[in-house]
Every structure is written in structure tokens, then in C-alpha cells.
């Protein structure tokens, strides 16, 4: 049985480590904020200029000057800090954020990621996504295994315009988890299957070439 959104977020949360500074994209990655294991200190960054994202505010306590990168009202925490966009992306580009968890439209077996535009549709812009995948040393993508037409989103090569070249380290879908090599020197490793999901199903629904982790072969 495939993982649901919450379970995909739980799997992504296993990538957190004590002391990490983390940037979470919108969608399923946002759910990871509520799944930090007890006793572990994880600091969340909002690329519009906040380190230390707190929970959403209570009704009546919203502050128009305090929003996240998705423009939702948020709160800060004791020990938080605010800074400019230049300083924020200096942090990101300089490799100081340990982990970025974000969504994807396509991932290629060499670690390429596409998640910012579909040709022919209006371009909204890449926002901070290109900076995050280029600057953060560990990038985890959480996405549906196939698109609405059933086509594989984990591919030999991306067909959509890239967000970054050789930037994905781990891919989590509702049926499997793959460990990728950014440098493209080895094939992706299938490291985990959702409960009840068979290898044949993964093979059928995937275009990318991958090998099996020892415990699965």
C-alpha cells in the first residue's frame, strides 16, 4: 500500500539530524515541520529572511510584517533572527543550510531536477528554488511517482526545463525511496519500498534506470 502525504513527510523527516538548519518547500515538505523528533533541535529557514520559523499565529495575532516564503503569516521563536534577502541567500548559496526538502515535477537519474516551469504555460518564476538546489549540500525531493496521465516523473533525463543540474540526493515518492549520486557516477539506488509495493510495480512506473540496495536484492 502506497504511502499517503503524511507518511511521505514522515519518511522525509527521517533525514533530519540534531542541529540541522533546514529549508522546507511548500506542499508535503511543509508537513515535515511538525515531525521533528522529540529532543532534536532543527532550525527552519524561510528564504525571505527568517531563521527560526515558529507555528502559524493564532487568530487575531497575525503580523503583516511576518510571513514565510509562501506569503503565509507565521511566527518567530526565541533565538530567531531576521536578515535581508541577500544575507538569506548568502546562507543558502554558501552551503550553510544543511538540508533542503522540496517538491518536484521531474527528477532524472543523474540528479537533475525540474520543478519551476512547464513550457506553454505562463511562467511564474523560479523564486528561490534554483538557489536552494544549487547551494544546499543535501537536497531531498518529495513528489508523486507519476503524473496525472500516469507518465513516469523519475526519468532517464528531464523533459522540462531544469531547476538544477545534478542536485538531488534523495527522492521520496509514495511507493519508493531512491538514493541518487549527484555526480551521476553511479545509477540511483532503490533503498526503500512502501509497504506492500513490489519491485515490479516500481519498475513499471519508473523510467529512470536504478539498481537495488543490497538489502532489497
Amino acid at each position: 500500500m502506497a504511502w499517503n502525504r503524511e507518511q511521505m513527510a514522515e519518511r522525509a523527516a527521517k533525514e533530519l539530524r540534531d542541529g540541522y538548519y533546514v529549508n522546507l518547500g511548500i506542499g508535503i515538505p511543509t508537513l515535515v515541520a511538525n515531525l521533528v523528533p522529540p529532543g532534536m533541535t532543527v532550525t527552519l529557514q524561510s528564504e525571505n529572511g527568517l531563521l527560526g520559523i515558529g507555528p502559524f499565529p493564532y487568530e487575531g495575532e497575525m503580523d503583516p510584517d511576518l510571513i514565510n516564503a509562501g506569503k503565509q503569516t507565521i511566527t518567530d521563536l526565541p533565538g530567531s533572527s531576521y536578515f535581508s534577502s541577500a544575507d538569506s541567500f548568502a546562507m543558502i548559496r554558501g552551503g550553510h543550510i544543511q538540508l533542503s526538502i522540496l517538491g518536484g515535477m521531474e527528477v532524472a537519474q543523474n540528479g537533475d531536477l525540474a520543478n519551476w516551469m512547464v513550457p506553454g504555460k505562463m511562467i511564474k518564476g523560479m523564486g528561490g528554488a534554483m538557489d536552494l538546489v544549487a547551494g544546499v549540500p543535501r537536497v531531498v525531493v518529495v513528489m508523486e511517482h507519476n503524473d496525472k496521465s500516469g507518465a513516469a516523473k523519475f526519468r532517464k533525463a528531464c523533459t522540462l526545463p531544469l531547476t538544477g543540474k545534478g542536485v538531488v540526493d534523495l527522492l521520496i515518492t509514495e511507493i519508493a525511496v531512491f538514493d541518487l549520486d549527484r555526480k551521476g557516477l553511479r545509477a540511483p539506488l532503490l533503498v526503500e519500498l512502501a509497504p506492500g509495493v513490489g519491485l515490479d510495480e516500481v519498475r513499471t512506473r519508473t523510467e529512470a534506470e536504478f539498481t537495488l540496495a543490497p538489502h532489497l536484492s
Partner: protein
Amino acid sequence: MSTKLYASAAQALAGLCRDGMTVAAGGFGLCGVPLDLIVALRDSQARNLTVIGNNVGCDEHGMWLVLANGQIRKVILSYAGDNKILERAFMNQEIEIEFNPQGTLAERLRAGGAGIPAFFTRTGYGTLIAEGKEARQFANPDGSSDWYIMETGLTADVSLVKAWKADAAGNLVYRKTARNFNPMIAAAGRITIAEVEELVPVGEIDPDQVHTPGIFVDRIVVSTRQPKHIERPTTRPRTAGEPV
């Protein structure tokens, strides 16, 4: 002795607006946007503008007004969002859009204000953003190397920023995430105008706690915009028994 203080946004912009100029404006969504100054920019009727900013306003707010008034020829931004007017103008080839990764845009403005004409970044290497840009490899401390692309600095003829507090010397203090692009845009303007919520006496801002030193600010006007608008109000429910 000259003063940096102006009585209204219109007066602060007087004499500065001309067709074809480049204007940079601070803000992220509706947060930290110099709304009065942007209205004054619209009222100036200056046309063929190049506008630099993270986005170009939200529906009926901020730079959207200038866009809707047909004054913009080109936008240099990171995120266009759901902006129907921009979409239509772009499809009709009435406007040029230059997309930038958000961090690249922030750094280009920082470079422009700091006298740096170009820098290298890994962001966007191997993507559409890299097309037509110089790419080269630089070595890492561990002996491996990565590919980077060259990006150029950005300056503006006029910069419009929003701050929380200012003094008459032009020192600015921003509040929370309303800081965003404002400090770099303040430094990147040949003329910079600050719209502020409060003007405080000189000497009241702790010199260690100035975000934008007065050297970057030429003109100051007190904002008329209160209360501020929220784009995406998001709250959590109070659980039973939790203190209010």
C-alpha cells in the same frame, strides 16, 4: 543645511521621474512594500519604465498599479506569481520579463550597490537562466571543482524602499520579514527614497542597530498606510485549555 525629509510621497518623487528610467522597489509579496511611493510613481505618469523587484505587486496593490497603468516596459524579477495583468501584457508582447533566481536577484542588487559589476554563482548553471551567460569552473577547497555562471550587478536610477523607523540622517531600521530586498535596493539606487512608518529623533536609533546607514538614503517620507494588508492570512486553531 539640506534636509532629507519630504512632506508627501509625491513631493519626495518630484523631479526624479522620467520616461525610460529604471526603478527598483523593495518588498516580498505585500510585505515591506513602499506603497505610497509606488502610487506617486504611478501618478508621475513616467512611462517605459524598467522595474526591478522580487515581484511586481499583487492584485491591485503595489507595483500592480504601475503595471496596470501601462507604464512598464520591462520587469526584472524572481517571481511573477498569479498576476493576470502581467500575464496578458507578456502574452501580447507589451512587456519584457527577465526572470532571476531569487538569491541571484538579491545578490545582483547587493553587487550593484557595492561597486561590483559581476560575480559568479552556481545557481542556475545548466538551466535556461545560464543561456548566454559565461560559465566557468572554479576549484573547491577539497580539490574538486564546480561550474558557475557569471551574473552582473544591478543599479537603479531611483530606488523606493519601505522601512519601519528612520531618523533625519536617513538611518533605517526594518521590522521582521519586511526587511527582505529593501537594504540592497536602498544601496543600489542612484537616488533612494524611503517610506517609513515612524520618524524618530536623531540619536534615538542605537548606532549598532542601524540596518541601512543614512548614506544610502536621500529622501524620507512618512507612510500613510496603516493598517497593513495581509496577502495570505494563515492561523492555527487554539486547542482547548490553551491560554488566550
